[in-house]
């Protein structure tokens, strides 16, 4: 176990370096700069502004300065909002995305896992077709349609939840639901497939021969094996959820991380792009590792082989 963690972290270092390098040069080669604006500023002022951020130096030198700062944990100030450090912006936005992501994740699990289990247990009955059709609709409905629909129904018509903002716990409901339903639809499908496979295993027959009830078979015997593929999906999904969603954040006016991902690219906010990308990459790497550990916990066989 410790070896696994150690080697994965060791692999993470070159991975992060490649990501940082590629992103650095990609952003620099994209047309337009951070200081382009419609009311074009005079050339000499632009040069001075670039000098403020060290953009007047040769590109390679900038790159090494960036790497040097990065090694010291300094992501630099945002080009778009120079009063703020990139790390500061991420630090304020991430808790919001984390909360939203976690709630959506819980909702997705609450919907997806029982839904998929029931569908698998009652395969080819209406208890299978109904959740499966709903999940298909969930996959079809993009969040930018589902979000306004939920707002229309639960906020405008029934006035149960606030339509936007991120101030009180009741604000959390609609965005979490919108994201959660979408992911829940995916999880339902994965759970059903995984459980169907698990229910065909020989050891399920053993459990039946012992006199175990359907419920016991489902929860005690089939669940661990059946949920393994779901767990594999959950890692990247959770990383995606807690790193924010631009669409959800725009629809519900939430100060999360997703907005930075998109606007930083549009603003050519070089440091912010790099900061968010590296942050996301480290989330992915960490969560993939967590998934592997979780799988090892769920699957005793893989514990030994590593």
């Amino acid at each position, binding site marked *: 176990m410790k070896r696994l963690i150690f080697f994965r972290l060791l692999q993470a270092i070159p991975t992060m370096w490649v990501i940082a390098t590629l992103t650095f040069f990609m952003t620099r080669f994209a047309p337009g700069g951070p200081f382009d604006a419609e009311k074009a500023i005079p050339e000499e002022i632009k040069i001075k502004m670039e000098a403020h951020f060290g953009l007047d130096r040769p590109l390679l030198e900038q790159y090494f300065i960036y790497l040097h700062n990065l090694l010291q944990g300094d992501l630099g100030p945002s080009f778009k909002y120079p009063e703020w450090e990139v790390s500061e912006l991420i630090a304020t936005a991430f808790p919001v995305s984390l909360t939203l992501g976690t709630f959506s994740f819980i909702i997705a699990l609450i919907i997806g896992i029982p839904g998929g289990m029931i569908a698998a247990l009652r395969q080819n009955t209406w208890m299978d077709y109904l959740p499966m059709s709903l999940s298909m609709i969930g996959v079809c409905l993009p969040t930018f349609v589902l979000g306004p629909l939920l707002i229309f129904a639960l906020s405008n018509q029934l006035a149960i939840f606030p339509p936007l903002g991120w101030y009180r716990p009741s604000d959390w409901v609609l965005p979490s639901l919108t994201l959660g339903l979408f992911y829940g639809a995916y999880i339902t499908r994965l759970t059903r497939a995984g459980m169907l496979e698990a229910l065909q295993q020989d050891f399920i027959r*053993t459990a039946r*021969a*012992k*006199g175990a009830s359907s419920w016991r078979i489902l929860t005690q015997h089939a669940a*661990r094996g059946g949920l393994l593929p779901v767990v594999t999906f959950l890692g990247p999904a959770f990383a995606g959820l807690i790193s924010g969603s631009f669409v959800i954040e725009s629809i519900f006016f939430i100060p999360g991380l997703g907005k930075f991902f998109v606007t930083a690219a549009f603003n050519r906010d070089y440091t912010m792009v790099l900061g968010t990308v590296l942050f996301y990459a480290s989330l992915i790497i960490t969560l993939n590792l967590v998934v592997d550990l979780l799988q090892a916990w769920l*699957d*005793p066989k893989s514990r030994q082989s*590593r």
Partner: protein
Amino acid sequence: MPLTPNLPKNPRMNHLNIQNLKVNFHSREGIVQAVDKINLTIHAGEVIGLVGESGSGKSVTCSSILQLLPSPPARIESGKIQWSGIDLLRQNDQTMQRIRGKEISMIFQDPMSCLNPYIPILDQVAEPLVIHQICDTKLAKEKAREMLLEVGVQRILDHPNAYPHEFSGGMRQRAMIAMALITEPSLLLADEPTTALDVTVQAKVLSILKNLCEKLSTSILFVSHDLGLVAELADRVVVMYRGKVVEQNDTHSIFTHPKHPYVQALIACRPTLDVSEERLPTVEDFIHSGETRTPVPLKSSEPNPTSDQKNLIEARDLIVEFKTDQGVIRAVDKVSLSIKSGQTHGLVGESGSGKTTLGRTLLNLINKTSGEIWLNQEKVSGSGRKYNLGFRKSMQIIFQDPYASLNPRLTIEQTLIEPMIVHQIGKSQNERLDRVISLLEEVGLGAEHLTRYPHQFSGGQRQRICVARALTTEPQFIVCDECVSAMDVSVQAQVLNLLKSLQVNRNLTYLFISHDLGVVKFMSDEISVMQNGCIVETGSAEDIYQNPQTGYTKQLIDSIPAANRSASPIV
């Protein structure tokens, strides 16, 4: 060892009575009769052996008792299964749940796939007590520990939280027995419980099962394809063939006076240790079924002159090591081996002894750590295209599981023609097709099988296809890796006969790997015994059996069920 029949202690109590049971399988291809109106009675305390080849309906009968048949496709068409005054076939799920595991328990064939890999052994063994609310979880675990010790799973003391994969096959099957008997059921259904085990382990497991059931006065329905094995245990034997009961008698009578030709065939077609035969009798010799045609007859049955032959294949100081987290494991330890052209070299040993690794290393399917391999006085080396088209052409392998070793998505024609295309055997597609058809005929199949997929064949037929595939490249040397181990005796006989006849016709050289000494002896000119990666004994087949030099070899011989050791009926 004479068997004293266990007379029913109380014939009125808890006896199981199957009447007119008829089970059909409904699939897209149509309806298949799996069990056709059978009648069977098990008295309390009695051990019944249910024997038949795969597909004979023995397992289906066994599973229907507890309503464990997969439905669909299985459907019970008619019949009754009386148990304690109720008809088990008419009970709802709740009632069945109370009976399963408490009054009637069941053990399955493959202890690996039948134990839940995600739950510690101890918990699984304790589970029936918890399910049937016999005691609380803590006490149940305590009882489970005692039960495991009783069946000889000492490891549970050091590893109370061990998972199934941490146990060997034999230990897992012992755990299954403990799990089935922990509730002290009245009837135990054992569905091929030792088929997947090595002979040595099989003997131990069997004796544990016997002793424990006697102690608990549990009746057993023992299902197996191996008549010899059943003879060790059963008071009475029921033989099934194609869904019907063809013969039913006490064990002794079955062996001495088999009435039905199928039963006669079953008894005859086992390769035994004390008689050397050129060809094994098969079921077809007794019943003409028309399912399989007779292979091309032998050219000559003269034994090969062995002494003046050159070594076809030779291994020198072969070492194979695997790196694992626990460190380096040496699977093959300085093994030297040579096989003369046209001969069969048998390799016996328990699972884990390194015999499979050795076979695959000879074919370079596993990379050797050191040592040399020589084929036809030429050192085998290199890799890539040259190696693939050179040495691989002359060396082939037949695997244990004919189903897993055939690509399920390719037809037989595709499977057989492909190697010829790769090795540019045959000038045109038509010529290749002709070759394929003649190959199929050689192994006892026909041109009508060309367009079928592997799953449409029976196990024996599939293994014939594998043999045909190995022959497509016209090799000189074939490794037969446990290639009949998973087969019913009747099918096994057919395949063994086929291999023998091919050897003569094509002057093939075999390395025949098996854990079954009887089979190895039947096939081989020379035998090596392998233990822990080393060859502990080599000699002619007859010598090894008559005069084993090591204790390990003796142990191997002793583990074979008495009925299988000798061709003469046991008395």
